[in-house]
């Protein structure tokens, strides 16, 4: 099933990659596509740092005794795994890589509204990243990514201030990216690109950007307060000095809950594009999917205290937040049903991006459903702070967000790099990731209900937990292989991959009407849009005889 073209080596065309050479042309670029690649390299680095920490944790948990690393070391490992993965990998991932690359192209613009601020975003990310790396190399931080007080402000002997400041600076990267996207989507759509004609990837990024803009500043100021309290021995969160440790938790979770929607919404946007393309149909219920993205962003701000059901909040507050948490689940369910319905009477292809989308559907469904367990007050009392929660959020963040990210990378790789990745290896990697993931994290649901608490490195008094931990560790090694493969073959493809046609998937969307890779200013002349999104009927009407897929 290979594409009819791409047997002749095309003449080297000018594109955004070869237009200028030299380190300076990259480090001072304002081209959104180059900035996207800068992010791609940086976040991949942090992904493997965070993944390495996870590997060490899983190795420790193979045996009940704490015999691989010391207690303090393990505490630093899970803390830095969380901070690196959340702040330096997941939150930027899709928006900073795929969003930066695609948002202008999808709406028919030459660049984002503020290209220099886009570059500033990347530099802020790098500065935060350098600080975080320095913190890791010079001792690390052991407060957990949640920085609970008064442990972080008055008891920890680790580098809390440095880690807090690193994340603080990194937060502005996120804020500026969100700001850029909102202005771009509002003001720079090509003529004829009405809101109802926008790809749902754009709607998803719009909703994500709202959260980034309104939520991130709150965690920023919270970290400022933690740093100030620790440095100056203040008492804002310390009960011994009249402060309230729960105030920290409220302020922290006010951002950190919406943050998880920053992580999942873009992935949902990717999955929508992929499912539409590889079913050759317009997404079922376009407006409902668009509105559900916005609904998730809005409701997401109303549920933060469901992380605090046993923290000492009142029963009545708990009831309110539990009720609201179910409201957030509804739009997510709606999306899953709409994606499934899109498959009905489609013309489905099983290329690697679609395999990742299928994986997303399955894993996000499970992860989302386990959220219902956690929102149920009676059950949450038992499973909060156990491996049940860890399994839940990894299903969403890894099984959901990361699968979407990988699927998106594969889908748009020909556009980004001008090369085709090797399809066989990609399908294999998708399968390995799916299997490895389930083996790693499903046993953790059982472990959690059994009562294994989070953040324990030693369970020698509970040897009954070992079998499930061994299964989980075994899965994590498989998962690791699944992540290494794409890194290897993507790099390989940049040199040896088949040159990609401009639209290898015959996909809808303005980005596919540009060159692969695109020129610096994307479009030869400003497009004028006269068609609806996902016009696969028009696209396929002329291709009845072909099976339009890359082999």
């Amino acid at each position, binding site marked *: 099933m290979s594409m009819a073209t791409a047997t002749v080596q095309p003449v080297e065309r000018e594109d955004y990659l070869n237009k200028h050479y030299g380190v300076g042309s990259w480090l001072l670029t304002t081209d959104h596509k180059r900035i996207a690649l800068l992010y791609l390299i940086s976040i991949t680095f942090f992904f493997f740092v965070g993944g390495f920490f996870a590997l060490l944790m899983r190795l420790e948990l193979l045996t009940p005794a704490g015999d691989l690393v010391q207690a303090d070391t393990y505490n630093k490992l899970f803390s830095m795994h969380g901070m690196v993965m959340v702040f330096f990998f997941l939150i930027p991932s899709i928006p900073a890589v795929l969003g930066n690359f695609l948002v202008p192209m999808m709406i028919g613009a030459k660049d984002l509204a503020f290209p220099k601020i886009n570059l500033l975003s990347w530099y802020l990310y790098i500065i935060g990243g350098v600080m975080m790396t320095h913190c890791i190399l010079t001792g690390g931080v052991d407060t957990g990514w949640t920085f609970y007080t008064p442990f972080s402000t008055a008891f920890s002997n680790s580098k809390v201030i440095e880690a807090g400041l690193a994340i603080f600076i990194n937060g502005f990267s996120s804020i500026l990216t969100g700001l850029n996207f*909102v202005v771009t989507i509002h003001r720079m759509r090509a003529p004829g690109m009405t809101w109802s004609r926008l790809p749902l990837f754009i709607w998803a990024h719009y909703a994500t950007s709202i959260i980034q803009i309104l939520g991130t500043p*709150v965690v920023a100021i919270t970290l400022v307060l933690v740093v100030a309290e620790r440095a100056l*021995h203040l008492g804002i969160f310390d009960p011994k000095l009249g402060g309230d440790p729960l105030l920290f938790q409220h302020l922290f979770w006010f951002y950190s809950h919406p943050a998880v929607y920053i992580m999942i919404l873009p992935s949902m946007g990717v999955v929508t594009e992929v499912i539409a393309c590889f079913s050759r149909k317009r997404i079922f219920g376009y407006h409902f999917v668009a509105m559900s993205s916005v609904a998730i962003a809005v409701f997401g701000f109303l549920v933060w205290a469901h992380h605090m059901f046993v923290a000492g909040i009142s029963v009545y507050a708990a009831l309110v937040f539990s009720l609201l948490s179910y409201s957030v689940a509804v739009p997510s369910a709606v999306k899953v049903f709409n994606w499934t319905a899109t498959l009905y009477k489609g013309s489905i292809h099983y290329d690697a991006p679609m395999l990742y989308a299928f994986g997303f559907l399955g894993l996000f469904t499970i992860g989302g459903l386990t959220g219902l367990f956690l929102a149920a007050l009676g059950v949450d009392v038992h499973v909060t702070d156990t491996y049940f929660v860890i399994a839940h959020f990894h299903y969403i963040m890894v099984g959901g967000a990361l699968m979407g990210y990988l699927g998106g990378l594969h889908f748009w790789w020909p556009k980004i790099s001008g090369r085709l990745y090797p399809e066989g290896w990609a399908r294999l990697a998708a399968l390995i990731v799916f299997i490895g993931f389930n083996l790693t994290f499903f046993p953790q649901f059982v472990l959690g209900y059994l009562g294994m608490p989070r953040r324990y490195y030693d369970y020698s008094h509970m040897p009954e937990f070992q079998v499930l931990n061994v299964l989980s560790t075994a899965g994590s090694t498989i998962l690791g292989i699944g992540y290494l493969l794409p890194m290897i073959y993507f790099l390989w493809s940049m040199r040896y991959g088949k040159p990609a046609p401009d639209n290898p998937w015959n996909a809808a969307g303005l980005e596919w009407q540009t060159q692969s890779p695109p020129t610096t200013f994307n479009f030869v002349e400003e497009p004028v849009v006269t068609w609806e999104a996902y016009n696969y009927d028009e696209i396929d009407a002329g291709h009845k005889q072909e099976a339009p897929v890359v082999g």
Partner: protein
Amino acid sequence: MAAHAESHNPALLHHFATEEQQRNSASFGMWIFLATEVMFFGGLFCAYLIYRRLYFGDFAAASKSIDALLGGTNTAVLICSSLTVVLAVWAAATARRTLLLSSLVVTMLLGCVFLGIKAKEYKDKFDEHHVPGATFSFEHEQVPNAPEGVYANPRHAEIFFALYFIMTGLHALHMIIGLGIFAWLLIMAWRGRFTPEYHTPIEIGGLYWHFVDIVWIYLFPLLYLIDRHA
């Protein structure tokens, strides 16, 4: 490729289609940035309001010890500076170069006056040992409008002062950044970069300055005027 066939305002950046799009985008971007600033200060205001409700008497006693006259003067100074900012924008829109330059200068001067008064206040607090930390002391301070002999809890007062310094300090930091922005605007204006057709930087710089002013207008009564009856 449409190379510069038609001439356009050199201020029009390449990725925008029209000047209007550029102007609207800049303005919209600044408004969104101000929304993030509202959330940023918002966390502090939230913490402040919670503790004020919990420890009202102690906060009232602490509030009495900061100088409302100086704070009030600063409020007047900032309101005047917002007036000069509006003048600057109008001057740019109507090509009044002298007025533009002088408005920008006066704005910056007023900003410096604000910071100077702030410095005096901070110095007073330092001298009175009201700076949180090892040297903090707040013994036997009467709670206003409470029976004689009811003293403020020093630990709670220390929370007031911690928030006072962090909130006004963050605000002052924004003022300093604002001075930097206006210095840059002044240089650009001096070089004649602004015309009635293009003076967006002044508009959005003005928006930022107004925001910093508004934050102070909330800070002043909340911090300085707790429980002060006539």
